[in-house]
């Protein structure tokens, strides 16, 4: 595992989860990292680069990101075509969408995501086995319940808006509206801004203090 230069790293492999979504694994090069942080990735030698939350655990000696190839997709489509040994440019990890250590050990967290917004939560769950969590994952179809087997089924709620195939037929915000909210928990919101803003309003309305709501907007 040789480090080529500070900003360059090598692709291990790609694991395809759906026709559009994949997990890209690459060298970590011993970069320090706290679950919830992201990297800026691009194809080596090309100008465009994008932010991707780290999907792998703090304890893994590689990095993984969960990427949905979108259109027009300057970066997400191109990353999908990479092969073992190809070079990536990488900046980071950086960012503050992390969980305070005392919350990891003593708190309760409710993680709410749409689509690939589940990526940092995968890292939390893999990094902190003792974490007392509940996860709400909002997708259109159950096939987008990425790596569902990695979560404790009693803590994972799949909300499918396009078919009746999850724990709830509807959006994560429907779940929040219909169910009792634990105001002592810390809430994490990640993914599409529309969901984040709606969930924020519902949580505040139901009495959750803003200091306990943490958000990461992807788009």
């Amino acid at each position, binding site marked *: 595992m040789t480090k080529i230069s500070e900003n360059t790293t090598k692709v291990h492999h790609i694991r395809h989860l759906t026709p559009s979504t994949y997990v890209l694994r690459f060298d970590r090069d011993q970069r320090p990292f706290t679950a919830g942080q992201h990297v800026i990735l691009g194809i080596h030698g090309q100008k465009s680069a994008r932010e991707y939350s780290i999907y792998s655990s703090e304890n893994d000696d590689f990095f993984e990101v969960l990427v949905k190839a979108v259109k027009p997709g300057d970066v997400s489509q191109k990353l999908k075509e990479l092969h073992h040994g190809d070079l990536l440019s990488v900046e980071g990890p*950086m960012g*503050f969408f992390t969980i305070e250590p005392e919350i990891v050990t003593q708190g309760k967290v409710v993680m709410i995501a749409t689509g690939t917004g589940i990526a940092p939560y995968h890292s939390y769950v893999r990094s902190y086995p003792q974490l007392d969590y509940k996860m709400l994952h909002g997708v259109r179809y159950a096939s987008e319940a990425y790596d569902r087997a990695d979560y404790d089924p009693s803590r994972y709620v799949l909300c499918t808006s396009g078919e009746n195939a999850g724990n709830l037929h509807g959006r994560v915000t429907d779940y929040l509206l219909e169910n009792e909210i634990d105001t002592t928990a810390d809430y994490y919101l990640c993914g599409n801004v529309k969901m984040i803003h709606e969930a924020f309003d519902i949580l505040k309305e139901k009495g959750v203090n803003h*200091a306990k709501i943490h958000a990461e907007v992807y788009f």
Partner: protein
Amino acid sequence: MNMSDSERVRTIIETQTGYAWTDNEEEANMLGILACSVRQKAIDKVYSRIQKWNKWKHKKSLLTFISGCILADDMEKFLKLFDIVFRMSELEKLPEMIRQYGVVTPASLFTDLTAMPKNESINTFWKVTPHYSSGFEAFVPIQNGCDKFCTFCAVPYTRGREVSRPSGEILDEIANLVGQGYKSITLLGQNVNSYGHDKKGEEITFPQLLERIGEAGDNSGKEFWVYFTSPHPRDMTDEVIEVISRYKCLGKQIHLPIQSGDEKVLIRMNRKHTLEKYRDIIHTIRRLIPEATIFTDIIVGFTGETEEQFENTRKIMDEFRYNMAYIAQYSQRPGAVSSRWVDDVPTEVKKTRYHKLSNDLRRVSAANNRAMVGKIYRVLVTGHDRKAGYLSALTEGKIVTRFASENHDLIGNFVDLKITSSTDFSVEGEVITKT
């Protein structure tokens, strides 16, 4: 930041290349720009300038250079237009580039256009003794780069990650400035109060740095004010405010960017602090330093900003009663995350919001200024006023002041003024004593 950068560039050029400074653009044989990608307008101006300069090349010998915050896309275009393009972290190489010009092509000076400044090279840059352009006001960089990644901002992509300058160097530079009689010193950084975060355990923290400056300053027997800009609310601790309250030389003016008064807009901007946290900071300032003035930065018309969200920003103008706010209409910054989001607030709406908020500011600032009338303020005389027979000055809280005087020797010195009248954004006074 560019003020301090340009002072350092000037020192390097004057001391190592044999060129002498001129204020006359048309007379110069070497012309350079320190660019700022933060505003598209600034970059547009660069293009019109270089086109003009390149025309002059037909008539005289002229070498052009550009540096500063430049995005990769612009960098490529600038390589074709300017003779020399360099990153500030490469400043030490500038004399060599000037000497080699004509032997190598500008592009060959760069191996990796996308590389961020390396820590070692920014350290070398800081060591350059700047040529200060004012005899009483100086800017001292203490930190470079930003790790915050606000979605509207390109700085983390152009300046790279946060790097703190060694505190010993900062304290030496300030001691030197104070020794030379400088009266206003501003500590600079993109994220000034995250000073030391990149060197936890090895370097002192921002409040500790302020404390050392305060201690040394108050014991120096000299009179001067030290400011800092720009801090981030996330890193603004009670300790910082408490230290400012204790030392006479630490200026009682705090610039605390809020950007929006709406919680959801703050989330989309990735500011990573709540309005409540910001409110707590303001309360602490008011409690510990009641005389402090508070300035801010606000963006109106950010992607997705609704009328209701904008109205929340208007409310904070009344709640926090800012002395000054730098209000900007949102525009996409190439490279920033939000440049990939639809800029969906129409220009006309942005303009209307800008005018409404500016009027709110005017009202609040006018009231603050009215409250100064009849009181005595120590001010630093900064230059000639536009009004004939008047000098301009700044209070410790950086409120713009003018007073009748023909005594030009007062420029760069402190005087006491009794405030006699006020306008929306300034006050007028009469001299009481002279230092």
